């Protein structure tokens, strides 16, 4: 007779998927985009991403030591993922200390103060990014222009015609600084010129010309493939899409979130995003530009900070998409993905409170 066998609660078998495996798969899905950004922006961007990732792990380690909880949580891979996602949000030319600060803010103020993994309300990477944008606005936006314009291998996007258009807009229009050369930034500038009553006809013509160029298939194709200005990880919509769909197929990402998110941006931009009344926006431009792909597939879908149910995920996606279009069209920033997601993060507990799965056995008796 054998005594002292192991006693435990059922079930006695478990699915092989662990938290760690999920985090590592998300990181794996980001690798192609990371590689592309090294290709487009040069090896320095690789150093930035590595720095961000390592800093995030270090930040978590320090916090765990201070909380006297041991370093076990480091192995789950979530800190590394946060660090990498944060780096994806940086322009390629920022100094090396920027991802370090961003990662520490992300981990400490985005995650650890709430009690660690699973307890945070906001997406930690976006907290880090929001902090950096607020603290170092020039570094975080203006510097986007340099890698694209100076790096000959990546000059595909800003074609000559567009460049003359930008220059004429900038030089004649007394904007305090030419803020950015991301496609969305250019669009915003052109819109500003158009809506400014002081603009001359010539300026307006040039602005319209810019919009036309931005909305051309050539530009959209470049943006889709990754030949465009922007932050590190945002460049190639295509690669992000592939990585994102890979996660959807593995059910790590609930496809309802990115599809509703991107779908709303597509339709709403088409409807109100143009300058010639309704239905003059370019929906294709809107979905491949800026951080939308990254945000919709990798940021909004962060498990900890998004709703629990399918319906909740759709609602989150729809609202976030709506906010993105509003910010892009009417707001002060050219891009609004980061803030839209952060705003919706705040609503997640509320969504989960009211949108629940249908409980078995409470259907009306017929």
């Amino acid at each position, binding site marked *: *007779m*054998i*005594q*002292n*066998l*192991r*006693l*435990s*609660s*059922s*079930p*006695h*078998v*478990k*699915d092989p*998927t*662990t*938290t760690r*495996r*999920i985090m590592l798969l998300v990181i794996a899905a980001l690798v192609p985009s990371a590689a592309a950004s090294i290709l487009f922006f040069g090896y320095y961007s690789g150093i930035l991403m590595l720095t961000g990732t390592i800093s995030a792990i270090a930040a978590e380690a320090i916090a765990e030591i201070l909380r006297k909880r041991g370093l*076990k*949580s480091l192995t*789950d891979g*979530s800190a590394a993922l946060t660090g990498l996602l944060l780096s994806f949000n940086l322009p390629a030319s920022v100094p090396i200390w920027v991802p370090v600060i961003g990662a520490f803010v992300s981990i400490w103020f985005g995650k650890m103060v709430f009690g*660690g*993994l*699973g*307890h945070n309300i906001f997406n930690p990477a976006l907290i880090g990014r929001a902090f950096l944008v607020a603290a170092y606005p020039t570094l975080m936006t203006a510097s986007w222009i340099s890698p694209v314009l100076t790096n000959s291998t990546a000059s595909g996007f800003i074609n000559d015609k567009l460049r003359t258009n930008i220059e004429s807009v900038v030089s004649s229009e007394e904007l305090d600084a030419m803020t950015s050369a991301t496609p969305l930034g250019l669009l915003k500038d052109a819109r500003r010129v158009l809506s400014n009553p002081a603009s001359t006809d010539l300026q307006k013509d040039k602005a319209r010309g810019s919009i036309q160029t931005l909305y051309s298939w050539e530009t959209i194709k470049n943006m889709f493939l990754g030949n465009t200005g922007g932050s590190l990880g945002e460049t190639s919509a295509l690669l992000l899409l592939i990585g994102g769909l890979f996660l959807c197929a593995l059910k790590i990402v*609930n496809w309802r979130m990115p599809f509703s998110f991107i779908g709303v941006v597509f339709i709403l931009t088409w409807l109100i995003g143009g300058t010639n009344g309704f239905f003059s926006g370019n929906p294709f431009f809107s979905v491949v530009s800026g951080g939308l792909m990254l945000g919709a597939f990798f940021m909004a879908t962060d*498990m*900890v*900070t*998004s*709703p*629990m*149910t399918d319906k909740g995920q759709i609602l989150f996606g729809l609202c976030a998409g709506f906010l993105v279009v509003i910010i892009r069209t009417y707001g002060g920033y050219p891009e609004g993905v980061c803030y839209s997601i952060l705003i919706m993060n705040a609503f997640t507990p509320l969504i*989960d409170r009211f949108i*629940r*799965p*249908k*409980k*078995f*056995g*409470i*259907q009306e*008796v017929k």
Partner: protein
Amino acid sequence: MRKLTFKGGIHPPEKKELSENESIIEFPVRPEISVPLLQQLGAPSKPLVKKGDPVKKGQMIGEAQGFISANVHSPVSGKVKDVDYTNHPVTGRGISVTILTESNNTPTSDDYFKAEDPEKLSPQEIADIAKNSGIVGMGGASFPTHVKLIPPKGKNYESLILNGAECEPYLTADYRLMLEKPEKILLGAKLMMKACLAKKTFIAIESNKPEAVREWEKLTSGEDWIELKVMKTKYPQGAEKQLINAITGKEVPSGGLPVDVGVLVQNVGTAAALYDAVYSGEPLIKRVTTVTGAVKRRANLLVPVGTYVSDIIEFLGGYLGEPGKVIFGGPMMGVSQRTDGVPVIKSTSGILVLSKTESTEKPQTNCIRCSRCVTVCPIGLMPYEIAARSETGDLETAGSVGALDCIECGSCSFICPARRDLVQLIRLAKNKIIAKKKRGAQK
């Protein structure tokens, strides 16, 4: 045929291949057996024998006490060694009648009450035989069958569902029974249908048992009282509420019973047991159980109730390597045992041995709100939430978000990437809430 199913659920590795081709073999009676007096859900039965008494095979040794209880019979002829607390596979400790088998263990059927003409039995007579024979649900829950057979006043059964889904991984006892003793199940089902006055019988088999499906297609073709339903292979397909939902489209109301939607669910093994009781007069004293996992030989055995697991393992050549866990039932809902010195009881659908390495578990980590548990819960609960409430002791909220509706299927714990012991926490909350209600009722 369209495969029926329910919402939610999981796909654990099936592992049926380990034992599905082993024909049922009759396990020899051992020199000593120990028959617990609690074999069912509800109250333990009252011992009718004492130390030193001689007993005959089939003799009643424990009498049902209270409404939800069942008679217990001696599976062997011999002498009572003791009536005392021993290891119990479900409750840990419980009163058992330990019997020393006599060497000339010849079956005596003097006590067996054989129905003269089974075709002519009235519903009440059938229920009485079930009661006298100590028949309980053999799928694992072990609810006394006679209590369920006759519908409570004001309610009635529309249909009878024979549960042959056997959705627990590893287990193949019902499958072998459906292949080897289909006529017993068929006739047993007929008796049940007669007793419960249902108009139609369905037999539900999961699609991962194609041979059983083929066999039963043959058996049911041309019969208009019984129909075969092929179920999608998914856990917990065989859970009562999920099965009813898949076949009839009805949902057993929260807090209600299957009879509320006019359905009676019985395990195929129970139907075979009723057949034995009616046609040969043999009470429920043995059952088919699957012995599988880390044992030298895997088998589907017809074991006398009360046989020690250690004897069974020895019969099968011993453990394969060092055993980590011995589980009564399947891996999803089975109960792990501290020792193999426990007896098989009427509800033991399987004995699963897991090796040392299979028995080590990863530590729990923080919930990452991945929503997997929500997706798989067949009851539509948010398991992470109930578990969190259970942890903080907030029973009120745990109850209001559905703790009592949990069927303890374990799907949530199975899928959780953070390895949280969700069912355990939910079960805890559930038990506390029920205990509190009882206390409130007594005041």
